[in-house]
């Protein structure tokens, strides 16, 4: 009898523990997301619907208590009207999307062969090559971008080297042009393309390429028909990791770009710190988020639907 009781207790206890672990399993990521995504998002959304004010912080509250306990809420949509309607902002958005698109494609073109080479290298070489990809992260991002100024400026390393080789007579103007932005972005974001692609390619069964060859497929065609489609998840992951942050990129266009390289990140910075217009800056941020998240959500939905249909 005593034994049965003890068993029962152990059982109950075990169940409790399981329930607890289940709650922590689901709860921790949810808590994390609410704390570090949802809460800041709500704050920014609230600011974007406010008006500027000479106050600390420099915007009005959305609600106030009018007399006799009536809650008065005032939403200001003017910022969004401005952001979506203004020519300058539209140009900045389009330019940001364009730069992000071009840079994502460049990263893919450069990163894919690199990831492939690392994935197919010998065990020892692989460690070394991966190290070389990750190594730049040990230096501050800002310093690395500054270093590019030294390389790209008229009497910088690149121009001096090309003139020493005799390829050019006069220095090229690269710094403070869109080209400099492309170079800086591709350089900075390349690892974000290589790493997910490497992770994907390294898991691929090389036996599949042998099977393709055995069935009469030449190596390049086997790459197109087998490797490429199988690495699609890696391509998507890498492209998102590059595209999304580049759209909002601020540091690189600011340091390397010129007056022509108008990007959303830079405008946001100007509104926030230069003009002290927090609500407008917040509206830019929210619009940017909508611009990026909505298409990706639709894509994800479509993907799921296709998967379900396949089953």
């Amino acid at each position, binding site marked *: 009898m005593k034994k049965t009781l003890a068993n029962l207790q152990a059982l109950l206890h075990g169940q409790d523990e399981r329930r607890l672990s289940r709650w922590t399993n689901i709860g921790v990521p949810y808590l994390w997301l609410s704390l570090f995504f949802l809460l800041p998002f709500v704050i920014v959304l609230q600011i974007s619907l406010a008006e500027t004010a000479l106050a600390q912080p420099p915007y009005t509250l959305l609600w106030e208590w009018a007399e006799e306990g009536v809650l008065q809420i005032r939403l200001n949509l003017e910022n969004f009207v401005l952001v979506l309607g203004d020519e300058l902002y539209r140009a900045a958005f389009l330019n940001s999307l364009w730069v992000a698109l071009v840079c994502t494609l460049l990263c893919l073109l450069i990163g894919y062969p690199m990831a492939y080479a690392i994935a197919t290298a010998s065990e020892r070489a692989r460690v070394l090559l991966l190290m070389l990809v990750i190594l730049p992260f040990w230096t501050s991002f800002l310093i690395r971008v500054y270093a590019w100024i030294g390389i790209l400026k008229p009497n910088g390393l690149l121009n001096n080297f090309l003139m020493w080789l005799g390829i050019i007579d006069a220095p090229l103007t690269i710094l403070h042009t869109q080209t400099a932005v492309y170079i800086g972005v591709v350089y900075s974001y390349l690892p974000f393309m290589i790493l997910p692609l490497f992770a994907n390619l390294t898991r691929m069964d090389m036996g599949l390429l042998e099977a*393709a060859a*055995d*069935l009469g497929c030449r190596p390049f065609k086997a790459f197109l028909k*087998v490797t490429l489609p199988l690495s699609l998840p890696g391509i998507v992951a890498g492209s998102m990791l590059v595209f999304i942050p580049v759209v909002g990129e601020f540091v690189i266009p600011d340091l390397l770009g010129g007056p022509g390289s108008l990007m959303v990140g830079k405008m946001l910075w100007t509104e926030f710190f230069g003009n002290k217009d927090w609500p407008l800056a917040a509206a830019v941020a929210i619009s940017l988020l909508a611009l990026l998240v909505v298409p990706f959500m639709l894509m994800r939905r479509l993907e799921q639907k296709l998967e379900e249909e396949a089953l």
Partner: protein
Amino acid sequence: MALSPDRRKLEPWQDPKAPPYVRIDHVTKQFGDVYAVDDVSLDIFQGEFFSLLGSSGCGKSTLLRMLAGLERPTSGRIFIDGTDVTDIPAYSRPVNMMFQSYALFPHMTVEQNVEFGLKQDRMPRQERAERVGEMLALLQISELRKRKPDQLSGGQRQRAALARTLAKHPKLLLLDEPLGALDKRLRESAQFELVNLQERIGITFVTVTHDQEEAMTMSTRIAVMNAGQILQVDTPTAIYEYPEYRFVAEFIGSVNLFEGKVVEAQGDHVLVESPLGRLLRMRDLHPHAIGTPVTVAIRPEKLRLCQDYREDGINQIKGVVEDIAYLGDVSIYRVRVGPGTLVEMTLTNVQPRTEQALTWEQEVAMEWSTTSGVVLTE
């Protein structure tokens, strides 16, 4: 001795005039300083079901991969149907291989997998569809045509892989541990299916396996490999009944080995004196000179209970039952015949186990006929 025409067709290796379909000519493959395949020469004939048998790392897979063109021999030549294919890459060889992992393309349906090789040959769409349908029907997986490999069971995957390799109607089909991923029961039925298929479509099969039972049931001939070399090439029966090397004898089935010295030659048999004080009369394929120390082999099921044991009897031996393993259809008895020497005897359980006389610690006399033992070459 002249062979009957039938026999010549069934056993082309007996016919000196038959041209080999595959000729492996002094092929060596080195990885670094390891010899994976060490100076192997081998002829395989049209319509054979040839098995390369050996434990893992013996070089059998490397040899198969060289036939497929996935590895290049370090030296030596490979001929298929009279053509030197040593320098021809895998994608141009008239050979198809079924991989151990099946290597089905995970992003394609069963149908697309089977079609893949045909597309490479630029076969017209109509013909392609027909061939795919034919292959799927042959392997009874027509209803799975729209499935992806990860939606198939192990057995279905094996069929899909086989359909894919057969689709191009190769003259030579290579199978790397074709049934390794299947459980025992599935494997047995798959073995028979493979043999039936081979007899029906008449192509030459070369298969690699470490499973002696699989090799025994399926093959016309078996090559036993060890450490990169081929030890013996023969029919399953000959490999089992007349192994030439200790490794071959021990690798296939269980065997009792005795050391001894040749004391008398009697035609294709010799009389061997064993340290156990017994005279053994054994078949000797490569006559040994008198006085040569030799190892002789006798299979456990060739032993039987001896009714008239004589102290000077040939091929008779006496001992004490030490161990009995009851397997249902047969029982295995381990009999101690001398210090440190155990002999294994397998007896069919004609009587129910409970009514059998033989029990532990019992003295038992055993014998075997002069045709069932063999002297090993090595």
